[in-house]
């Protein structure tokens, strides 16, 4: 089992390559890119749309207040390349979201990674998984 798992992990790293994070249509002026916030919450809506998909979820912050967060990722095309789908989330899913919040304190942000109810994760920034070349 250990050998198998080690092999799988090695295979995963082989298939990972550096990929430029794509935030094509706007910059990051409103976001505090130095902050790193992780929230546990419940999905209220998943919008699969251009120019950016975004996930809305209710989460309690460190003051005990529940707020409805809206966090953006890139467009459906780029997210498809990362393995995301229109059906990646459903209302009521328990998720853990790692994000960069906006500077003004509103519950808005850019999603970095999200952990799904089954324990798997999806990433929105940084290295992206890529496919093997097609058979010749």
């Amino acid at each position: 089992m250990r050998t198998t798992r080690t092999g799988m992990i090695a295979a995963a790293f082989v298939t990972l390559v550096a990929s430029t994070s794509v935030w094509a249509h706007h910059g990051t002026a409103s976001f505090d890119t130095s902050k790193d916030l992780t929230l546990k919450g419940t999905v209220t809506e998943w919008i699969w749309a251009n120019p950016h998909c975004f996930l809305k979820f209710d989460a309690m912050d460190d003051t005990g207040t529940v707020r409805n967060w809206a966090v953006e990722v890139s467009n459906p095309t780029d997210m498809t390349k990362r393995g995301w789908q229109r059906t990646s989330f459903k209302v009521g899913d328990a998720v853990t979201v790692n994000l960069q919040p906006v500077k003004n304190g509103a519950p808005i942000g850019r999603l970095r990674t999200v952990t799904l109810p089954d324990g798997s994760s999806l990433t929105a920034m940084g290295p992206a998984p890529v496919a093997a070349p097609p058979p010749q």
Partner: protein
Amino acid sequence: MRALGSFVILLAVSAPAVYTQDWNSAGLPDNVINAPKTNAASAPKRDISGIWDSGGAGIGGPGYESPPWTEWAKEKAANYRPGNGPRAVYENDINDPLSTVCDPTGFPRQVLYETRPFQMVQTPTQVLILYMFERRWRVIWTDGRPLPKDPDPRWYGYSVGHWEDDTTFVVNTIGTDERSWLDNAGNPHSADLKVEERYHRVNHDLMEMTVTLDDPKAYTRPWTPRNKMRLTLAPPNFDMMEMICSPTEVIDFRRNINERTNNK
């Protein structure tokens, strides 16, 4: 460890589907785009038909560092509030006509920004280019007609093409609509802009695209924002995803995200 194991399984299940599926392909994966293609078969003569993908290189999100603007360009772009580049504003203040109200991408922005996969189709008198981004198309006339004199501006201009040699197709375009921007940095252009696109098929699987702009009304010299950008031939069963600016979706995005990022 458990999370990483799940991630591995996710990769194994989802990644190959990106390439091999018959419908709704987002584009070729980076490792296919970046693979050397020096051993591929020779380029066919006078044939650039097929679906081509530049991968991440084609997206051009930050925009371009242009030559100096003329006084006309400074006045033209005085009220442009771009989302990227040296003049970028806060997200809620952006007034890019493409991303905020879904104006047409226009030309040449269509080949300078979001150059996602596109299909080239050759007929006896035309080359048609069908773009995934915004699901737009262009007609390049190859029937020998000259470019029009004093044309009415069009979002996608007027284009004629010819073969410079057996593997190089050259397109000349005029008559563009100066309401469109060149890029995300808010570089303007005038209706006097002349664009030359060069499509050089290096071998069967690889093509290079070069785009040169000559717009003395707006820029102090011609410039080449795309220089031999690599394009990889996609398999013939590649079905392009839709990637369309829908005003309904943009309004929803702005209401949920942009309008709440205000820093004022």
